[in-house]
């Protein structure tokens, strides 16, 4: 029996809850504490703890390095496109009131989209940082 059985079993039990908690924090950023940055770090934390316990190769089967490196600029693109959408409809850059017929609903929708972009960039950057540091030392 390997010495780290407790860690392996415990991590397998905890990671689904971490991912669900990250999703909860992201989507409840409007009604309570939360938002894109916290959720991004929690999601990245779940991938990192999986890589710490089971090894980099296992983690890279689930979150391949190419995919993570592709996701890093994708979040910035989502953010910028939400802003440009306001420009295309005749208002200022990053004006969200054009996203829906009723201006406050449009602004809420813009906030949700922008937080999604932040989540994607922050999560994939933290995982990419971890991959860069650990692949250097192999």
């Amino acid at each position: 029996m390997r010495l780290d059985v407790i860690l392996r079993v415990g991590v397998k039990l905890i990671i689904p809850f971490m991912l669900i908690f990250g999703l909860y924090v992201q989507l409840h950023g409007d009604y309570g504490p939360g938002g894109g940055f916290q959720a991004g770090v929690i999601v990245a934390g779940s991938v990192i703890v999986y890589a710490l316990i089971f090894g980099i190769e296992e983690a890279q089967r689930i979150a391949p390095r190419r995919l993570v490196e592709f996701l890093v600029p994708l979040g910035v693109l989502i953010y910028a496109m939400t802003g440009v959408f306001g420009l295309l409809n005749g208002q200022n850059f990053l004006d969200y009131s054009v996203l829906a017929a009723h201006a406050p609903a449009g602004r809420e929708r813009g906030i949700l989209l922008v937080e999604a972009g932040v989540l994607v960039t922050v999560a994939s950057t933290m995982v990419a940082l971890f991959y860069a540091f650990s692949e250097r030392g192999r």
Partner: protein
Amino acid sequence: MEAFKNFFDHYNYIATIVLMVAGLYIVIARGNMIKKLIGLMLFQTSVYLLYIAPGKIIGGTPPVLDPNFTVYSNPLPHVLILTAIVVGVATIALGLAIVSRIHEAYGTIEEDEIFERGEDG
């Protein structure tokens, strides 16, 4: 008594300044580069406290709007410091990458040894 009351009113700020000075001392007085980066982190986190402490209202609640409460703490410093925290971790990550490359180029991360090596050749 006046000075005593003044001290306890401002104790939060005084503790924050002590943290800031400790971080500054680590950055200028220690030669190990990873320790310097940790000192920089201490300095940054003390600045977060310095910004958020004046925003607190005694008797207020966190700034999440709710019909039951009327007095909220100031949300503006929270926004600025949220940005600052994420920028801080980005800076630390980049600094650690540079420290790793310095170690590969010089074989050491002690500032004194690198300067001596530079004087020799």
